[in-house]
């Protein structure tokens, strides 16, 4: 089979990847220019590294273990609201962290709903602060992700396999051993690694729920090194540690993670003949009820306190919402300009390992990139004028690994399926993108765009580092409200932020799926 002309040019993809690598390298160069002395890591830093790894491991482990019974229940039960619940599973992942914290505190906090209930029945209060709080919050964000990956795996099991087991009269135990266990072994390692990486770079959660200096994450230690000690050497060193630990785990995750396919099909369910007993039914019911309340209650709390505070929200918050909106839209644009050519390159490259470049964005500290660029920009221009440009670029880079994970499989499949037909018709380059790749991958593009928009709307990000008082984003404004004693108005702003994140995601995802050809 002679394939002398590839329909996708590699040049654009290589250029985009180079852009990402250069952006990260430049940040390190910027910081390197100002490092005078590099002191080693002290006990505080080692403690931060240990804590970070411990909490990430626990969070990932717990998310995965809890996801198994819930995903199994969702995959084999039909009930009212099932489609809604599965859609809702996507919510925590795109929920801005500062908003989610309000909801989690309202439910699990010291004066939250849970403790009020425990007090009523005379059980000792539980504390959300400390390691358990950090893990709880991370499980809240990532359990749904694990559930989604698993439900997807369950749906990938050929229907004949369940029919065969039914015909052979296998009970739930045998079905678990023969069908479900191999499935879990295939999906869980990847899900674990992915969640581990996400938790590793977590910053905001440990800020409030950590409980004290023993719960310092690496990212928080970087922040302290920059902000308080202004020890650029240590900040750079910590950034490198984070890059290696997170990058290592991310590369591992990349090899293990099942391709994430999204869009339709999640609400399809398979008929099952095992697990018809009342015991398993009850168990599944409990699992579903548990997962649903764990997800829905904090969201409801945000909604109720937000609605109360909405009347107190000053006009400036709406102005900031507008800024956040267009920052998100431009971030999406930048992301697509970088991610699409990169995905095209990766999808047609023999060595898929180039996708690892995309993971840089997940492993590198945004604060470090911001500071590095600040140092580089400052001699030539006012960094304040560049605040939004930097914010937009960092947002796009943070979303890049997710976008690639979503785009690459679809583009790879499309390219493989149609490359000979397109070759025969002489469709290549831009035309191949326009006529074949983009329309075929529309659901994935919509999903990736929605994810990027939601993530960048919710990110407090580097803008706080060199902000301009006249152009602030919504999370920053929410932060200012809290800093001026206006907690109620901040709750109102949180609700607007939530609506903006979900709205943007919903619209873009809908755009992608509308008229999508299966």
């Amino acid at each position, binding site marked *: 089979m002679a394939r002398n002309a590839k329909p996708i040019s590699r040049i654009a993809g290589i250029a985009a990847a180079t852009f990402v690598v250069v952006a990260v390298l430049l940040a390190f160069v910027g910081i390197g220019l*100002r490092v005078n002395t590099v002191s080693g890591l002290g*006990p*505080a830093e080692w*403690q931060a590294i240990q804590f970070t790894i411990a909490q990430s491991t626990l969070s990932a482990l717990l998310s995965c273990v809890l996801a198994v019974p819930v995903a199994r229940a969702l995959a084999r039960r039909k009930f009212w609201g099932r489609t809604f619940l599965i859609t809702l599973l996507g919510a925590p992942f795109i929920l801005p962290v500062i908003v989610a914290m309000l909801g989690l*505190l*309202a439910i699990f*906090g*010291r*004066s939250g709903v849970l403790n009020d209930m425990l007090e009523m029945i005379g059980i000792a209060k539980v*504390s959300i*602060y*400390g390691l358990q*709080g950090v893990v709880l919050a991370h499980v809240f964000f990532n359990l749904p992700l694990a559930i989604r990956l698993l439900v997807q795996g369950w749906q990938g099991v050929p229907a004949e396999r369940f029919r065969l087991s039914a015909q052979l009269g296998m009970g739930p135990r045998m079905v678990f051993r023969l069908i479900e266990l191999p499935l879990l072994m295939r999906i869980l390692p990847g899900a674990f690694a992915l969640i581990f990486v996400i938790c590793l770079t977590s910053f905001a959660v440990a*800020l*409030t*729920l*950590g*409980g*004290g*200096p*023993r719960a310092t994450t690496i990212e*928080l230690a970087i*922040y*302290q090194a*920059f*902000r*308080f*000690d*202004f020890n650029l050497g240590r900040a750079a060193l910590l950034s490198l540690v984070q890059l290696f630990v997170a990058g290592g785990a991310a590369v591992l995750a990349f090899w293990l993670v099942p391709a994430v396919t999204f869009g339709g099909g999640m609400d399809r369910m398979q008929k099952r003949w095992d697990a018809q007993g009342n015991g398993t039914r009850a168990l599944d019911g409990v699992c579903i009820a548990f997962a649903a309340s764990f997800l829905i209650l904090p969201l409801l709390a945000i909604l109720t306190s937000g609605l109360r505070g909405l009347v107190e929200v*000053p*006009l*400036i918050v709406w*102005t900031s919402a507008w800024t956040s909106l267009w920052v998100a839209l431009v971030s999406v644009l930048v992301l697509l300009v970088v991610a699409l050519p990169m995905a095209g390159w990766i999808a047609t490259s023999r060595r898929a390992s180039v996708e690892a470049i995309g993971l840089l964005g997940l492993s590198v500290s945004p604060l470090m990139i911001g*500071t590095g660029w*600040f*140092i580089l920009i*400052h*001699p030539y221009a*006012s960094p*304040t004028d560049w605040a939004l440009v930097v914010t937009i670029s960092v947002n796009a880079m943070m979303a890049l690994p997710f976008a690639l994970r979503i785009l690459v499989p679809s583009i790879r499949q499309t390219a493989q399926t149609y490359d000979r037909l397109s070759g025969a018709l002489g469709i290549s380059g831009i035309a191949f993108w326009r006529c074949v790749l983009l329309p075929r991958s529309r659901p994935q593009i919509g999903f990736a765009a929605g994810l990027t928009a939601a993530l960048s709307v919710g990110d407090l990000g580097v803008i*706080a*580092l*060199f*902000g*301009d*008082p*006249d*152009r602030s984003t919504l999370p*920053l404004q929410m*932060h*200012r*409200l*809290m*800093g*001026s*004693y*206006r*907690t109620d108005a*901040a709750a109102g702003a949180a609700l607007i932020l939530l609506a903006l994140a979900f709205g943007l995601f919903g619209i873009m995802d809908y755009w992608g799926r509308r008229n999508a050809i299966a």
Partner: protein
Amino acid sequence: MKYLTFAAGVLTATSAFAETPILTVYAGDYFTSEWGPGPIIEKGFEEICECDLQFSTGDLVPRLLLEGARTKADVVIGLTSDVTAKARATELFAPHGQDNSALTLPIEWTDNSFLPFNYGHTAFIYNETTMATPPDSFDALLAMPDDVKIVIQDPRTSLSGLALVLWVEAIYGDKSADVWAQLAPKILTVTKDWSSSYGLFTDGEADMVLSYTTSPAYHMFAEDDFTKKAAIFPEGHYFMVETAAKIAGTDVPELADAFMSYVMSEAFQTVIPTANWSLPSALPTDQWPEGWAQLPLPEKVLFYSEEESTAVQEKAIETWRATLSQ
């Protein structure tokens, strides 16, 4: 209003302001927010200076260190006395040129570079409806049962958190580690910044929060809520002062000087209480807004000078970290 016209302003900025000199003031993020003193001060100063005052926000000391001599700042406002040593080391600052004897601080101030514009004291705030018997001394605070929860701030990221560490150091000195060990079970959580802590307190998560003696004033005068109180301790309270300073390399030295004297003016000083929710640095008590003179304030004030603060900071923070990490 200015936010609405901002977009239009950007387009015409270069032509309209071409002849208007610009005074660039670096300030903390809270300072310039719509609810901080920034907008009022900007308006007040622009009325008398025939200039354009532009705030630029961010973390002050890291930013000055990053920018060095190339800084665009003409004036910096919001440096507390616990970080002025670091700021001073940049050698970017010029004498403030104001008369320190006009200050009405509870301590003596002799610094010629950093000019105080407000002050307050660290204090634990409680809600008297939920806390019937608040501690009446720092010792009593330490003796509280462990189910009374307090939230504090991280001294490595927050100036109020740093002030607490110095407060403990000032009262207890070598016994600080024991003090932290006694406080540890009562500490609900340590937040990055003051606002997260205070949010937890107003949400009812904590019984007490590390804040300022002037915090109850906000609730009293802005919300008509008289239930929030500062616990006043006879051991004394750590004094926190925020300063303004002039950058030596400014290209508008006259404007910078004018701003420094504006800081000392009655117009500026009367804005501070209700906009910054802190005490003015150069305003006799009888000129404070109504009700402010009645605020319970500590009789004894603890304060480390810049040199003392620099000398004890690192050790005090490490004691805090090491004890709370166990």
